[in-house]
């Protein structure tokens, strides 16, 4: 059989050695580490992902800077990714100042997407199947949202963005706000945490499912040619089919990450702006609940979260 038992799951785990072609030549390249701390496989893959993005977009930037019409598959494809995020994610959900924040969305989307897609290449893996890495990404979203809001509206207005506007007498308003403000602030924190869990769970679970299906093959080892060939065929066909799903999920999760970041940022910025310019506009009581679009997206993300 192709796989030794357990090795299929090893492919979705972080490690301190690279197994390239190990099913055939048992080639193991050790990575530098000190007592289990150092450059792990996923760290190396993150570097690879970053390098790939730079390799693609640095030359492309020079072409796009000219303002000329895009030509060729390379230019059109990679520019489309950027214009898609800018026109369908940043502009509708952040508003007129979207171009100031689209840098982060582009970087986050491309980094998550590349990390997700690296898992589709044999012997590599998805760094986004590590909770540490998705947590760092989600933490960067949290920091980014606060930093942008503070830079634009100042600390006080930013903090006021988390205080719902209440038409109540002051003696009732103060204690209620003292209870509500931590909840609102913690709500954003929780949303970012869920962002990390969603990405991690989708990427990790997808690989686990693929690995598990492949593990059926060693399970039927030495049970006769008929069963072995049937199970092998069914497993390989199943993995092939689910790999297409994985490919789709890789794009979907990267999109959702960027989309939700834009949504959360847009919500906080809107409320900070209300705090800065008075309450002349309609006020949403919940800073992170930015209306029907938000609810719609939550339904969408939750359903995709249960995809695996």
């Amino acid at each position, binding site marked *: 059989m192709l796989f030794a038992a357990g090795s299929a799951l090893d492919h979705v785990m*972080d490690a301190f050695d690279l197994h390239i072609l190990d099913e055939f030549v048992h080639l193991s390249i050790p990575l530098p580490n000190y007592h289990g701390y150092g450059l792990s496989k996923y760290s190396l893959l993150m570097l690879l992902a970053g390098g790939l993005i730079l390799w693609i977009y640095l030359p492309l930037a*020079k072409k796009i*800077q000219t303002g000329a019409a895009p030509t060729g598959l390379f230019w059109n494809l990679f520019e489309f990714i950027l214009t898609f995020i800018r026109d369908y994610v940043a502009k509708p959900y952040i508003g007129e100042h979207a171009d100031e924040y*689209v840098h*982060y969305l582009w*970087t986050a989307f491309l980094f998550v997407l590349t990390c997700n897609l690296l898992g589709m290449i044999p012997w590599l893996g998805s760094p986004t199947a590590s909770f540490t890495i998705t947590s760092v*990404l989600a933490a*960067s979203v949290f920091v980014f949202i606060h930093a942008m809001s503070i830079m634009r509206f100042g600390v006080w207005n930013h903090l006021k963005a988390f205080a719902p506007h209440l038409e109540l007498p002051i003696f009732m308003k103060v204690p209620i706000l003292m209870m509500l403000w931590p909840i609102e602030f913690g709500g954003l924190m929780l949303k970012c945490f869920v962002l990390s869990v969603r990405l991690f769970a989708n990427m990790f679970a997808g690989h686990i499912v693929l690995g598990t299906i492949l593990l059926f093959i060693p399970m039927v080892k030495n049970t006769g040619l008929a069963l072995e060939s049937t199970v092998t065929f069914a497993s390989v066909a199943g993995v092939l089919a689910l790999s297409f799903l994985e490919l789709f999920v890789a794009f979907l999760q990267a999109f959702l990450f960027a989309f939700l970041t834009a949504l959360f940022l847009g919500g906080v910025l809107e409320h900070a702006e209300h705090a800065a310019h008075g309450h002349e506009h309609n006020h949403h009581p919940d800073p992170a609940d930015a209306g029907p679009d938000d609810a719609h997206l939550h339904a969408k993300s939750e359903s995709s979260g249960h995809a695996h």
Partner: protein
Amino acid sequence: MRQLGLSLVLLLGVASAALAAADAGHGPPPGPLDLRYDTAIWAIVVFVGLLLILRAKAWGPILEGLKKREETIRSSLEAAEKTRAEMEKIRADFQKELKEAHQQIPALMEEARRDAESMANDMRAKAAADIQGERERLRHEVEIAKDQAIKEIWEQAAQLATLISAKALGRSLTEDDHRRLLDEAMQEMTHVTRN
């Protein structure tokens, strides 16, 4: 923007320190759910580094290019729209002129016909006048020629009469007789012709 990058690095550093504190520090292989200090540092370095490099070298120029292109497209569309409107106006003017010209054609034709008619009439009248003049002149000449001829006839008739009368009388009259006779005859003749 530089301060933004710095603040991001600092805050992510704090976040990663918190992650590291949560890490129990066990050896490999790292589990997928473990919060690992080293992996977090790598993730921060790679992601923030990527963000800063792309922001400086790629996203800025790309955004600039995209805006430039949008501007080009917008201005091209506006120019095309303007040209189209101008063409439409020129076409409408031309159509109007053409229509006016069409309307003028019958009037022009009528005028030309009138001109031709009056010219023909003038020519006809002039020709008629010419002919009339010529006729008058000819009649006058004929009149003169006739008078001349009559005068010559009278003279010759007088001579002839003198000759005949001389022969008949058988004698020569004097010159004065002749003259007297002739004058009498002439007066008689004239008198007769006048009557």
